[in-house]
């Protein structure tokens, strides 16, 4: 029996003898593999960024947001877009008797505000909240201080601004102690936040944080000054997070006198947010990857086509090899190995192209293209599999050739 090394050597010699054709055949697999790697890499990159962004919101975070009921009961009281969450809800959740696993609660409302400093004007998101916001959102201060509970109680006109906002508003000097106007109301800046460190979005760094009472009195556009747009809740620790989640949900259901089927709010954890975002990008990745995979299939058909041509061109060679003692299975293996090598070489070059493409696309698109080691391995195995799969039919045709017919053809 012919050994493997000799089989591979013969296959490489045969492919090398038709170099241009082998290269063109590989091109189909090559482009397919590169396309699949790039689309999947883009999807995985987007997923990693979203996950990182959600995780940068804080730790052990539970987010309560208002939602419209989906039950067939029709409209709820208050109607329209009015928030169903209030500062009373936040106070309820802060009560340790009600929710013992909750460490801190930060109700927030936000509005777009036009800012004016002595230097320039700028538009940013203005958030009204409480001092606990800082710990719940895991934010630190670059300079100055955060506002206190007593400033909340007294509706003080003080503001803490994001690092991005600070650079936009003040070209020189420290912003601390400066006065800005927000939608025409004067505020004194008492602190500047550190950058949130999220690479994708600078929203977290372009913000103005003011006491929720001041926000309600001077900036809110809502009729109900008690309403808030969301409530951030920090769990005591990672282990009791699901307990905290249940407590929050139960407390609000009871307070709002609704069942979980027609709840007018939704409670999500970071994990559930990551899951939702991941499932969306996952579907997108699958879709794009699927389109790319079709090109891989076309590449496989190309390999099959060329292998069939190759078999009919080499009828005499096959006949001679059979006359000299090659059994049908040896001939079959010979062509399978040839097709496999075509597939695998195409895959290898495709992977290299994928890496180059990722290096080029990352700065161009401003998105991370994440090509993982498992994805690379899978790509290699798939390209080898496609090559061999495409070789099965041509190889069995070659194996079935009768030696006399093969020798006769001239």
């Amino acid at each position, binding site marked *: 029996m012919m050994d493997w090394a000799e089989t591979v050597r013969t296959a490489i010699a045969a492919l090398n003898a038709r170099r241009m054709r082998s290269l063109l055949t590989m091109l189909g697999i090559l482009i397919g593999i590169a396309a699949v790697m790039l689309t999947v890499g883009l999807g995985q990159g987007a997923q990693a960024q979203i996950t990182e962004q959600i995780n940068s919101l804080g730790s052990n975070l539970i987010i309560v947001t208002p939602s419209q009921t989906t039950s067939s009961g029709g409209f709820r009281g208050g109607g329209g877009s009015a928030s169903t969450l209030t500062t009373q809800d936040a106070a309820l959740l802060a009560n340790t008797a009600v929710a013992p696993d909750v460490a801190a609660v930060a109700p927030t409302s936000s509005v777009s505000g036009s800012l004016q400093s002595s230097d320039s004007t700028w538009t940013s998101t203005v958030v009204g909240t409480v001092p606990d916001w800082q710990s719940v959102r895991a934010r630190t201060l670059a300079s100055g201080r955060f506002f206190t509970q007593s400033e909340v109680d007294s509706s003080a006109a003080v503001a803490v601004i994001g690092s991005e906002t600070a650079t936009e508003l003040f070209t020189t000097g420290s912003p601390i102690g400066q006065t800005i106007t927000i939608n025409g109301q004067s505020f004194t800046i008492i602190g500047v936040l550190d950058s949130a460190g999220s690479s994708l979005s600078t929203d977290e760094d372009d913000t103005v944080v003011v006491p929720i009472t001041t926000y309600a009195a001077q900036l809110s556009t809502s009729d109900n000054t008690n309403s808030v747009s969301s409530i951030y809740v920090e769990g005591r620790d990672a282990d009791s997070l699901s307990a905290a989640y249940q407590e929050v949900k139960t407390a609000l259901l009871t307070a709002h006198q609704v069942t979980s089927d027609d709840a007018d709010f939704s409670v999500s954890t970071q994990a559930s947010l990551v899951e939702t975002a991941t499932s969306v990008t996952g579907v997108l990745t699958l879709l794009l990857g699927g389109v790319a995979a079709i090109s891989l299939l076309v590449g496989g058909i190309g390999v099959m086509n060329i292998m069939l041509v190759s078999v009919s061109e080499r009828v005499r060679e096959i006949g001679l090899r059979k006359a*000299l003692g090659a059994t*049908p299975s040896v001939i079959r293996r010979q062509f399978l190995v040839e097709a496999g090598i075509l597939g695998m070489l195409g895959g290898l070059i495709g992977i290299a192209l994928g890496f180059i493409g990722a290096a080029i696309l990352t700065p161009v698109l401003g998105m991370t293209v994440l090509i993982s080691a498992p994805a690379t391995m899978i790509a290699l195995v798939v390209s080898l599999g496609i090559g061999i799969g495409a070789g099965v039919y041509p190889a069995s045709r070659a194996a079935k050739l009768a030696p006399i017919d093969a020798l006769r053809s001239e």
Partner: protein
Amino acid sequence: MTHMLKMTGVRKTYSTGVVQVDALRGINLDVLAGDYVAIMGPSGSGKSTLMHIIGCLDVPTAGTYELDGTDVSSMTEKELAEVRNQKIGFVFQAFNLLSSLSALRNVELPLVYAGTPAAERRERAMAALTKVGLADRVQHRPGELSGGQQQRVSVARALVTDPALILADEPTGNLDSHSTAEILDLFDELNAAGRTIVMITHEADVAAHATSPWHIYDGQLRDEPIGAGAAK
């Protein structure tokens, strides 16, 4: 003397669509070890079919065929491949060398399929090429060799497995008279050294080198030519 080849009542019938062609109609042929047999016949006489069956490239429809003591008449394709590999050395009219391989690699081919280790393969192929006088041409590709040299490479390839039988199908059909003489001398030498040779040809002067000439007409063997045929 031992029988190298023994055919009894071998028939071969082809059915091409509706027509049935009796290519061989009862061939009885005994070849002893060390014989040099020539089989002559015009085209359409069945000599190619006979060559295919002798060469184990095809199996007879009826009758028995023993090669070197083994009945090969009802073997599977895989078994036939092994018999061809071990017992028969082919020399074809068109040389049938692989153009992309060197002379040495061409001669090694039967040993590759026999599973011979690479070092031994090389050694035996070198020895066979030396025997046919091409020791200085081993790295040449067929395209770089003359017709006579190419045919000598294929004789070396036929010898390399030390087969029971050398089967030559019109070995001089593509050669000029000088190369023809060279190849026929080579066959004479091999036969003198004890090789069994069966040669298919339509040229009488080529067949004259053989110790026992046979004639095939309409699928049957005769020891005399008929009509104003090819032989004297």
